């Protein structure tokens, strides 16, 4: 199955903006980040389908995973 991964800010450097990533049933958000070599400590905001999500969250086919470093502004 695939999930759509969207990367933002510095996570795009040397990676991509948006990509369908192959996963297996039972894969968590953390597993996908591991596959993309994104250090967990650098992650600020995680969203699955627009909702805040934890690293342990299990992904389903077609989910949209958005990954941001810690950011702020206003």
């Amino acid at each position, binding site marked *: 199955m695939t999930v759509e991964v*969207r990367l*933002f*800010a*510095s996570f*795009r450097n040397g990676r991509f*903006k948006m990509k369908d990533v192959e996963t297996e049933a039972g894969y968590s958000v953390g597993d996908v980040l591991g596959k993309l070599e994104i250090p967990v400590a*650098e992650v*600020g*905001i995680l*969203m699955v*389908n*627009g*909702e*805040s999500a934890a690293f342990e969250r299990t992904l389903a086919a077609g989910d949209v995973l*958005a990954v*941001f*470093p*810690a*950011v*702020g*502004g*206003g």
Partner: protein
Amino acid sequence: MAGYCGKILRVNLTDGQIKQETLDISLAKKFVGGRGLATYFITQEVPADTDALGEGNKLIFSAGPLTGSKVPTGGRYMVVTKSPLSGTIASSNSGGFFGAELKHAGYDMIIFEGKSEKPCYLYINDDVVELKCAGKVWGKMVSETTDALIAEVGEDKARVAAIGPAGEKLSLIASIMNEKYRAAGRSGVGAVMGSKNLKAVVVRGTGKLAAADEEKAKEVIKGVMEKIRQCDVTAKGLPAYGTAVLVNVINETGIYPTKNFMEAYTSRADETSGETLADKYLVKNTACYRCPIACGRLCKVDGVEAEGPEYETIWAYSADCGVYDLPAVIKANNLCNEYGLDTISAGATIACAMELYEKGLIKDEELDGVPLEFGSSEAIVEWTRKMGAGEGLGAKMAMGSYRLAESYGRAELSMSVKKLELPAYDPRGVQGYGLQVATTNRGGCHVRGYLISPEILGLPESIARTSIEGKAGWVKVFQDLTAVIDSLGMCLFTSFAIGADDYTDLFNAVVGEEWTGAELLKAGERIWNMERMFNLAAGIEPCEDKLPKRLVDEPIPAGPSKGQVHRLAELLPQYYKERGWSEEGKPCAEKLAALGI
């Protein structure tokens, strides 16, 4: 007296008299400084029912006790007056270097009263203070005015806060610009300055400010600098992408208001995001006085280099108007800075006009050949120019979205609170933020208790954005803390890295007090209640604590926050209770007595 200069300049523009007054330091501490102290003076000296553009209104430039000190980001000042846009108390914050320069010249505050017969500007060079003729720069843009006045006074290092043509023409969304690009943007403070025929304040200060306890201050500042360096938001995100890094975050959450809040998500956000801005147009970062964060952007389009745009500006001109064209957004931003218009209100008013046009209320005959169509790059640039110049329908639009929509019988299409245009977050998908903007004393403003921080960014901790539980308490604390930070003279962005205890330590070391965090927050609560009392006296009733009908009645149509509406009716009673106000939303006598007001 450390932290404060102990001096106020009182400038009567009607008779040209300039007086120096001694600042009562215990009074200053009670209201901290900046926003709090200036609001106290307005409440004492300006009857709440005064015509905001009449001679009776006063305009105060007010620095905080940390402004001009060695504290990081200690360069902020406030412009406080009665707002001609909303009729509420107005306090507009700006960074850059002007506030610090004012303190270095030896003044905590300038109070302008009356009205000059002819265009004038105030020149301060330490102890020498004089009103001078501004005839040559009246009608000129902000950057030309700034350069001309610096040349005229012959002081390269002078700092200038000026209005552009929009303020002169009394646009109710006019800003005051310092160092060309930094804005005391909101609530129409530029119109009050224009109504007094005051074009600019030019200041040069060479004094030094010592902290009450230099050793202690050094140590506390070192600790705060370390926290700013260790925090990813202040050390990485803001320097690399500026505030516009939020474009994608807010859009991915599905609370990115699109086409005058008709929608809340767009598949095109990245075309005008902070990432794209940094990739294609950023020349370099810029920083305000003693700021290690440097979130400012110097950008270049068509050979023109200028600062900005910020997140809120990008949103207002891009998603809110349906325009995904960064060069056009940058040009509109530059026009706002030159004419002296608030970018949020200007962009949001164009978005409102676009909806009025789409609904057939604004007719083609009114448009001078530039259709107000969602998605039109030409429209956002040209209508900004027309608003600044006060041309045709642009003159009406320069009075803000509320008066524009009302003139077509559809006031509810103005996405504003207390007539101040809402910024770049859809309250329907973020409940605490919605409560905050509905209750903010100056109207639809995000920086008076930035609930987006915990509800979306997870800072200092993550709270569920769609829940209403506990939100009233969060809103109260954030509003009170922000009132303090604004009054101290520091940048709000430090709050991503430091907390109430750090602000207290900084205040204590510089001013020479031994306050607790609770005492500092109580000062914030005092300021908040004082502002509320001014508004009530001005006839702004608690029924104005509301959101546009669309945001409480119409669910978000699509995207990640689909189906959500704002639950203000449930939250408001909780908020009044949390504040210790009556059920009707009025501060009671016991509360005011407990706060010493």
